[in-house]
């Protein structure tokens, strides 16, 4: 049997306010299989974002383990974690998080630049550009390549962010309320796009959302409540 692309074992995470420990995650067990689309539901402040950060190696768990393809990764060195984060996971955030100085195309291309030298990038620049343009076309932005984020609508910005995650060729996408900042019609469009990507690319998703309807369309729904995950 294949190991899950992404799994958490007994993950806890606490913040400290002065001397006082504030436990947020209290032993989360979770596994996302290849190509699986998992919805993560939970009240605001339940710790969903915190969990995503821990799973994406942006933050270390207080205790417990994080595994990619069955390998323990949460305790790797910081440079290794950066490399793995780049290879393995794509992030999509609620507030898009694009670089304002760069055009849509450049924002997408940026992910390819993260882990290679100028020379390496130069050799593959044409192919990369074609790939980025085709992905942007795929998310419906072929006429917006040279727009800066400030010149794009919210939905368009989120599509750029999705394209950015896709060019990375990740094994799993961690999406933190990707439609939380969009009106319902635009949100539907973005969600349809995510479902289509999941189908076409067999790409695993861990999707944080408040929308029960939407969650039902996913393969599986998990809930984060009182610091633990319940199915």
């Amino acid at each position, binding site marked *: 049997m294949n190991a899950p692309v992404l799994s958490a074992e007994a993950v806890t995470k606490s913040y400290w306010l002065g001397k006082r420990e504030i436990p947020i995650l209290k032993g989360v067990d979770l596994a996302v299989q290849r190509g699986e689309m998992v919805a993560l539901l939970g009240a605001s402040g339940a710790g969903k974002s915190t969990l995503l950060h821990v799973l994406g190696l942006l933050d270390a768990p207080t205790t417990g383990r994080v595994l990619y393809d069955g390998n323990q990764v949460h305790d790797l060195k910081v440079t290794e974690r*950066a490399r793995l*984060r*780049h*290879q393995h996971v794509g992030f999509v955030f609620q507030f898009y*998080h694009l*670089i304002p100085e760069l055009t849509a195309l450049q924002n997408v291309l940026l992910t390819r*630049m993260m882990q290679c030298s100028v020379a390496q990038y130069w050799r593959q620049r044409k192919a990369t550009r074609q790939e980025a343009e085709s992905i942007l076309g795929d998310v419906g932005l072929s006429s917006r390549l040279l727009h800066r984020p400030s010149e794009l609508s919210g939905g368009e910005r989120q599509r750029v962010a999705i394209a950015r995650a896709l060019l990375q060729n990740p094994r799993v996408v961690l999406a933190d309320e990707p439609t939380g900042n969009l009106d319902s019609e635009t949100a539907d469009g973005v969600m349809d796009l995510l479902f289509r990507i999941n189908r076409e690319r067999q790409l695993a998703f861990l999707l944080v959302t408040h929308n029960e309807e939407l969650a039902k369309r996913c393969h599986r729904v998990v809930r984060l409540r009182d610091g633990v995950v319940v199915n």
Partner: protein
Amino acid sequence: MFSWVLALRYLQRRWVNVLGTIGVMVAVWSLIVVRGVFSGFIEDIRADVRRSSPDLMVTGLPLQTSFSSIDAALRGDDEVAATAPRLRHYGTFFQRSGGATLQSVELEFSNVDSSFVQLVGIDPQRERDVTSFDDWLARGRKRTARDPADHGAPELGSNLEVPAKLEYFARRRLDLSVPADPEDFRSLWPGLLLGKERTRYQRGLDIGSPLDLLSVDYVARAAGEPVRAITLQRTFAFAGTFQTGARLFDDSMAIVPIEPLRTMLGHDALDEGSIDLCTDVAVRATKGLTIEQLQTLADRLVDRVKQALGTPMPTGCKPEVLTWEQQNAVFLDAVDTERAMTTLVLFAVMLIAAFLIFATLHMMVTQKTKDIGILTALGGSQRGVGQIFTRCGMVIGAFGVVGGVGLGLATLWNLNPINDWLFESIGFELFPRTLFDLPKVPYRIETPWLVGVAAAAFVLTLFVAWVPARMAARMHPVKALSYE
């Protein structure tokens, strides 16, 4: 890779960083230009000082030292090529404004026109072997645009005396008694040379004009008797001007033949028991000695002089042999110190530029906190994130340094045209050349200095960029992402 792309992109969108570049540029430019001009001046000054000074000067001799008593000892050294006696004294001179009697004394309070002089008695023949005395005279004779009065024309006699004819006519102008026929006239006044600058505003000073010298000497008639002051008086004829180029020397010295001065001081060559009095001995060393070799020669000569003078030495008397640098140490050190101080001040400009860069980059890191979080989430390494900002510094610094060096060199190469243009168009002289009596503003491009300034400026910008870069690299990605 991404750090280069973002560094350039961030800079392109933040023109405030141009301030940092301009700051570095101005600092580098001024360090190069000011230093270049200063070094040019110093080189000139050193050349002038060198011209005015013998290789070595024996000084600090006891009073009543006879030149011949130490000359042989000095010349016993293989590295001594020539020697010349110097007899220093002091006095004031009056310029007669007409007739045999003094009619008025103009008191000038400007230091240059003071009638106080350091008298230097020289033996013209020997002096020629030791210093570039003929060159001093030639420079003194040379006309300049600002100095139309032609002072120094005649060839002086072997003992610096003015041609008898000139003295004859000078005497006639002042109604002094002269024989009817100029051919019967024999010169009485020894010649006296003054610095060229000093005589520029001295009206009515013609070759052959009498200068009445007044001086004091302290003597004891016999051993044990109290010392007593006596006044000494002697009339000299203005014999022309000299110029070594060293202003300190030229403005304070009056050069006279040594014999009349010896006579004034009680050692007339014809008198019984007189000595060839001297206060110093100028020494020329064999060609091509370095300043260090001169120094060791000086040390040897001190011993020779002490031996020749014999013991015991009078109290408070300490013979010394000074190299040409030591003879002018006070002046040369002052100029060097001035250059060092100016350089220091300009380095402060550099520090301000560095601070400016630090401030803008620090601001940039704060503004870009969210980007830093995003980049980390996309798989950017700490190093890569930090490099964005060091590379910003690199670009700012490189432009500043290249611009500053380029502007600096361009300014130096065109220094005189620029200076002329400024003077002609707005009447402002950046470098007042009259102050130094130079036809052109001198400058000197020192490659090590150029490279040093460029490297220092660049390293400094890298360093000040490194601090905010480290701050960026160490940022926690989650906190950065949620930064408001």
